[in-house]
């Protein structure tokens, strides 16, 4: 397969490891080398280290899981000191996932990232349902999305990817706001706000009460959103949510994603992405189409 150009970057293949499921690109080393990926998104990073939420932080659900990690992370300083040296040895596209509670902190973060040469792009997480302030509040309002994106675009020297929240009435509205503000690409979907009750304890199973649902359960919702957003914007889409097979990935591509991201499945079968990439290339070859023709093809075919 030819490489893919999106957001001014070149990806060797369309597969991206999703933020929060791939550590700092070091968690896969026992299974495969990160250079086999099109790219990877680092665990969400904030200015200061974050302790995250109290346990229980995760729980399985039918064909999915809920997490309320609460963006535990080592903070930007330690990222630079402890993790970037290793990341500098890698060759696939490296994306930093930024989290802050205020616009000013987002701007400061983006400026710090400017200094890190090896980071190719930033993904702004305005859609995490697991933290008390910031996060989702930005992502559910078109105005705040636009404002925040504009401000980050102003300072950032890297392509800016806006990661959308699925917890909205009209995702196209948010997508258009991000595009209008200059986003270079969109990433969707983040997890869906959800909860489980432990009926023995008669309490929410997770200490944070609610968390974010991921995994195959959300795939049909994610595909629908990618399909809709593809019609609403013209910037590239990184599509994901529940992908665990070639067929799943193809659905996102045909719905309109230029790149696909795999998250939760990294926990289940951590050696899988390179295997899926191989199978994916074969499947694409079997069609009469080039990869770029397949992007969004489900919109262009006619019902017979």
């Amino acid at each position: 397969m030819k490489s893919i150009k999106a957001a001014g970057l070149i990806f060797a293949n369309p597969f991206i490891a999703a933020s929060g499921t791939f550590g700092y690109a070091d968690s896969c080393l026992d299974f495969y080398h990160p250079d086999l990926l099109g790219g990877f998104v680092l665990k969400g990073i904030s200015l200061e280290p974050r302790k995250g939420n109290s346990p229980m932080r995760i729980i399985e659900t039918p064909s999915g899981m809920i997490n309320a990690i609460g963006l535990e992370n080592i903070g930007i300083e330690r990222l630079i000191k402890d993790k970037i040296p290793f990341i500098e040895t890698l060759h696939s596209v490296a994306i930093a996932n930024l989290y802050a509670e205020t616009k000013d902190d987002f701007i400061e973060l983006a400026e710090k990232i400017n200094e890190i040469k090896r980071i190719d792009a930033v993904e702004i997480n305005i859609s995490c349902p697991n933290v008390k302030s910031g996060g989702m509040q930005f992502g559910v309002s078109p105005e705040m999305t636009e404002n925040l994106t504009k401000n980050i675009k102003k300072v950032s020297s890297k392509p800016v990817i806006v990661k959308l929240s699925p917890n909205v009435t009209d995702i196209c509205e948010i997508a258009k706001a991000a595009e209008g503000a200059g986003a270079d690409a969109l990433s969707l979907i983040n997890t869906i706000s959800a909860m489980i009750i432990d009926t023995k304890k008669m309490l929410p199973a997770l200490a944070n009460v609610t968390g974010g649902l991921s995994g195959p359960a959300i795939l049909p919702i994610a595909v629908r959103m990618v399909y809709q957003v593809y019609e609403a914007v013209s910037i590239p889409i990184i599509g994901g949510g529940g992908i665990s097979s070639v067929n799943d990935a193809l659905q996102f591509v045909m719905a309109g994603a230029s790149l696909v991201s795999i998250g939760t499945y990294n926990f289940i079968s951590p050696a899988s992405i390179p295997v899926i990439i191989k199978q994916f290339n074969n499947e694409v070859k079997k069609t009469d189409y080039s990869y770029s023709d397949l992007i969004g093809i489900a919109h262009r075919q006619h019902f017979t």
Partner: protein
Amino acid sequence: MIETQGIIVSNKPAAGSIHRIEVETERMELSKPGQFAMIGIPDEGFHLNRPFSIYKQKENRLTFLIQKRGMITSRLIKKSVGTKLRIIGPLGNWFSDAPAVIVAAGSSIAAFGDFIGRKDSTIFYGAATKDDLIDIKADFFSTMDGSRGFRGNLIELFMTKRKQIDKRNLYIAGPAAFIKAFRNRIDDDLANRCCASLEAYMGCGFGVCLGCVINTKSGYRRVCKDGTIFSLKELLL
């Protein structure tokens, strides 16, 4: 640590609702005492893999003691020979194999397979009733109904022998509640040389999801990667 396919080569009741399941893997690094593996059933839809102690290992063959608890363990103990499993392992840190005193309740004996039969170690092993004890040589047994060994709680049995406990390492394994109860009964001298292997609800098992953390004196630590074994005095239970 690797991900590999395993095939069930033997699946037999061991005691009570515990099955002894042997799995032949394609390849497997040698595990150390107290390490575990994540197990999944690949052909039955999405579910998180489940953590199980590697009870015994001989080259690529792993033995697990699996107790029926909920969805996946119920399925596992019914699986026929030939069933394919997903295996990720070996995982977690490990017990030093110096002589030790071991306190194991129920299925957590699976963490101590390498110590069973060792003359230099002492094993306290307890369950609800005789039928729930797997057939191993332990030094002291307890059952809640007195059907074998000491009648009552394993911790109480241990306390009756307190005076005989020398300066060897003290190892314990089980859910946080059990370990907390143990901590609350023993003196500081014992606590200071006690290592506890914790159970936690796990997402990945290899340190990336941050789902399995417990509170310790140095903040949240991942049970799967920073543990499962912690020195008891580190834990904030």
